[in-house]
């Protein structure tokens, strides 16, 4: 029975970890987009 629960725990753990990883990477990229857009706007205004 231990192996059975371990197998399900491994699969759900791996999938949950992957979902969290996608969400965190997406969040970090969105933040970078916001920073880059601000930088571009500042450079446009400076010209």
């Amino acid at each position, binding site marked *: 029975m231990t192996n059975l629960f*371990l197998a399900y725990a491994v699969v759900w753990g*791996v999938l949950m970890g992957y979902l969290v990883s996608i969400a965190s990477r*997406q969040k970090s990229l969105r933040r970078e987009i916001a920073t880059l857009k601000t930088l*571009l706007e500042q*450079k446009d205004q400076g010209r």
Partner: protein
Amino acid sequence: MNSSRFEKSLTLVTAVGLIATMYGAFLWAPTERTMGDIQRIFYIHVPSAWNALLAFIVIFIGSVAYLITKDLKWDRLAVASAEIGTIFCTAFLATGPLWAKPAWGIWWTWDARLTSSLILWLMYLGYLLLRDFLEDPQRRATLAAVFGIFAFVDVPIVYFSIRLWRTQHPQPVVMGGEGSGLDPVMFKVLMLSWAVFSLLFVLLMILRMRLEKTRTEVQHLRRAVMLQS
């Protein structure tokens, strides 16, 4: 139906489906006579393997389409599928030995199915590592596409290994010919888990491809900032 609504509906259906699969695997499906409860790993092991193979088929399609069109959207499809394939390949390679130990008395054996599956996982890792080493998007996409097509050779080997060679791994229970077959309830639970895992694959593909699209946007913006400075 707009894409956001579709995504929400897909998430809901997949989540309900996963709960139903758990119910089916643990409470509805009968206990297998010789192996006992450990056989219930079947309902998560088989659909994980299916998704891993499906992922390689998608990589193959994306790779061929990229080499023909040189459109990076196909490369994004391939890389998204490779990452998801690695996740499901890891899942079925991890659940296999957990089932094998109580059923066969050993964690692992170098038979055709297990070895070709391990090679499949290494191929996925190789594909992702190769991409990490290459900076230029077009060069990266071209080399990854060639590798993706080459690596696809392992997919039919994994699938047919238990039919072509004598293996420790059990013979197919669905479409396995004479003497094969499943209890009707077991078959229904397997079909349910297969369908739900396929939906999960689609959902993960949507999320992972969106990430790749955002990454492309970041690269464009970085270039624009560099050009302005």
